[in-house]
């Protein structure tokens, strides 16, 4: 290996690491607020990438029908509950978020011929389709189980992953897709050629991380999420609805997932099940951080990205093995430094 290859691999690793960092942040966020280990994160990555790719092929993505269907289901359940409880005032919001919004998005997709729109509009439409699925999944699957143990929530997460992955195969087929790059620019940094897309991915990740940091530090909703993460009961007593916190964190996670998918789809071919592997690598990063610390999770993600790209050079067949065994020393260290009998709920 010479310096040039090392730089190239380093660049690759940092790009992937930036994506893993975003996902790891979302995973830490969702776990802290809802205690859900969000395995289906990867499906949002795939849905984001493949929905955009379908637009660019000039076709209509089937995810719009999923959005519509899930929206109707949520509206139905919430309406029944609202009517039974005599909460008719809530109907307006239920209908707006679960019926009107999806209907508008579907209408736009069908009318506009998104394949001919500029990239930014395609991305916006993609996000409008995929992101609302986050809170809807929370409503349908996790909200009725909000008080269940971490273990039950984890098993349910795996079930949601399977459902979404199966639907992904049904919607997008087994073939992979790639989207057009956001930027065709090339920079020359000494001997190293840097892609515009690389700069774009890393830049977006950094901007998003800063935005999240500001969100948690400065806004009321951000602080509400932090409060829920620290003490669910206490936050509820202060008037912060756990359901709201759950839906908000799932919205953020779905948004980060879909955006990650959009960012990587010009660099790598995305299949319906690619997201799962990407999500799991985000997990490795999150586990390095003990599912608790955001900066550590981001650092872990870059480490995973670099390890992956360098091991694909030296031992490409064992790339995945190497990445996933990385958590072994981490777990070992955590296990040796903690000694305490924890009482699980």
């Amino acid at each position, binding site marked *: 290996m010479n310096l040039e290859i090392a730089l190239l691999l380093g660049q690759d690793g940092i790009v992937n690491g930036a994506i893993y960092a975003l996902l790891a942040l979302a995973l830490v966020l969702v776990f802290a607020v809802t205690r859900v280990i969000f395995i289906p994160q990867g499906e949002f990555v795939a849905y984001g990438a493949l929905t955009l790719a379908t637009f660019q092929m000039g076709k209509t993505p089937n995810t719009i029908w999923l959005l519509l269907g899930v929206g109707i289901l949520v509206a139905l359940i919430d309406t029944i509950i609202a009517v039974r409880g005599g909460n008719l005032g809530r109907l307006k919001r239920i209908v707006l978020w679960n019926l009107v919004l999806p209907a508008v998005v579907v209408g736009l997709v069908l009318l506009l011929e998104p394949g001919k729109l500029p990239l930014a509009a395609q991305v916006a439409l993609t996000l409008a389709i995929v992101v609302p699925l986050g809170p809807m999944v929370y409503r349908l699957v996790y909200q009725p*189980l909000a008080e*269940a143990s971490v273990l039950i929530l984890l098993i349910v997460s795996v079930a949601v992953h399977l459902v979404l992955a199966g639907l992904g195969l049904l919607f997008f087929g087994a073939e992979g897709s790639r989207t057009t790059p956001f930027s065709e620019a090339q920079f020359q940094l000494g001997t190293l050629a840097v892609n515009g897309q690389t700069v774009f991915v890393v830049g977006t990740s950094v901007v998003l991380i800063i935005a999240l940091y500001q969100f948690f530090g400065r806004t009321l909703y951000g602080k509400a999420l932090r409060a829920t993460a620290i003490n669910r009961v206490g936050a509820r007593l202060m008037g912060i609805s756990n359901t709201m916190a759950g839906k908000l964190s799932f919205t953020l996670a779905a948004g980060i997932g879909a955006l990650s998918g959009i960012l990587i789809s010009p660099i790598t071919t995305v299949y319906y099940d690619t997201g799962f592997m990407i999500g799991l690598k985000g997990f490795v990063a999150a586990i390095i951080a003990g599912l608790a610390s955001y900066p550590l999770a981001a650092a872990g993600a870059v480490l995973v990205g670099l390890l992956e790209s360098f091991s694909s050079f030296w031992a490409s067949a064992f790339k995945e093995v190497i990445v996933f*065994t990385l*958590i*072994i020393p981490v777990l070992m260290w955590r296990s040796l430094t903690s000694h305490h009998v924890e009482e*699980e709920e």
Partner: protein
Amino acid sequence: MKRHLPLLVFLVALAVSPVMLSEFYVTLLNYIGLYSIVALGLVLLTGVGGLTSFGQAAFVGLGAYATGYLTTAHAVSPWLALLIGLALTAVVALILGFMTLRLSGHYLPLGTIAWGISLYFLFGNLDFLGGHTGLTSIPVLELFGYRLDTGRRFYYIIWIALLGAILATQNLLNSREGRAIRALKGGGLMAEAMGVNTARTKTVIFIIAALFACVSGWLYAHLQRFVNPTPFGLHIGIEYLFMAVVGGAAHVWGALVGAGLITVLKQWLQDILPKIFGQSGNFEVIFFGLMLIIVLQRARDGIWPWLIRVLPSMETGERVVAEAEPLPRRQMPATGAVVLEVKNARKVFGGLVANNNMSLTVKAGEVMALIGPNGAGKSTMFNCISGVAPVTSGEIDFLGQRIETLESREIVRRGMGRTFQHVRLLPTMSVLENVAIGAHLRGSKGVLSASLHLERTEEARLLAEAKRQLERVGLGGHLFDEAGSLPLGQQRLMEIARALCTDPCLLLLDEPAAGLRYLEKQALAELLRKLRGEGMGILLVEHDMDFVMGLADRVVVMEFGEKISEGLPEEVQKDPVVLEAYLGGVE
């Protein structure tokens, strides 16, 4: 006899199946049997122990590849290959368990996801294991010269292995080690305080579950006679968990029900779904996923509990506790000797000082009462002494040895029994079994003899001891009630019986009289006097002053984490500092 009727019908049906059914159904039953063995391990691990693993398929793969490689490349006998595979599996499970099981519960599943993926890719990329094409021409299994070369012939060995595993698991759960396993879910802290090494117990059930999976893999390899990585991937590991959860993860028979249902359903869905969707792919996962979500939302205990209500009861309910030779007791210290000495104990939670500069002694044959207003730090002191939450600084001597750095299970081994302020019991277990957990350290028979029921003499002695202590506290009529169904006062008495089962020479009682009626309190006071007469030291936290003052030999008063007074009951009652702490000063 009527109790066992469904089981008998089932066994007869199993025995005649290969003769009556077509090849297709025999194959299906073979697979159900193989999957049930794996799911059974998950019942023990997830349903009973409250831990889980998504990597069971990888353990199946370990068993299959071990025999596949050894029998083809080195012509090792399949039976020896089984032993080697089991040893390999145990080592891997031990390492994984050591790394993850002392952390909170979700690290094991996450660790097993990573391990499941790694091993899958490893199988597919190692040349000596045949890469993604796998290994072929694995030899036929021979048993006493009888070649098991068809599905029909193989059927019996699979189902005998499964039924053996079910029986062993059931035996294990009804034993001393089994009670420790059942205490893991929701009773870890209590179990540690009763002497159970919960980290070890968790590792043990993780290894057992892995070994079951390994056996299934070994059988699979010799049934199929070839192996490739596909059936050992993560998605299959997830499917095994489905089987256990859907079938009823807390019941050994749930594994069989779940495996049967999922296998048949999968077969059926794989037939019809491609026709509906007009394309091929494993779409059955959509339905399995939805089914699992609904099961967990609506009927978390799975199908088996529902099935058992339809069928006549099959649970083995022993309703008599046989008389047995009493367990040996420890040597009690001489009356008047100091058993416990706390010197300058300090306990800090973050910035909060809960105990500061606390010193006290308890002698054999006396009742020492620790009193003080709510929040004075009495229960914290108890937790420090019993090792549940160790002191930040200071020294604690018990029977002349320093114990402040020991784990609570080591302290109870030395003869200190305790109860909890907020009762800690296993609500669905019987009162008798709850109390028998207290006697954990007085038995020594392990998992293997429990699975084979070779420890029945010891078990009878443990249960007889539990019964004796329950009769002592006046709960002799409630032996087989569910512990959760007792009123709070009686749950406290049950905790005392459990503490007595540890054969203590020092008893720590945290508000034992709370929730008791007047007569029950009198009976309790009588019992404590009797124990004191036998030479036991008793450290008592209690708010009922009539109870305390009528019973205590000496009293220590705490406020704001510090000792404010100490002496005989009548002295303390007159101490102005104490009066101010309880009643407020006169301004």
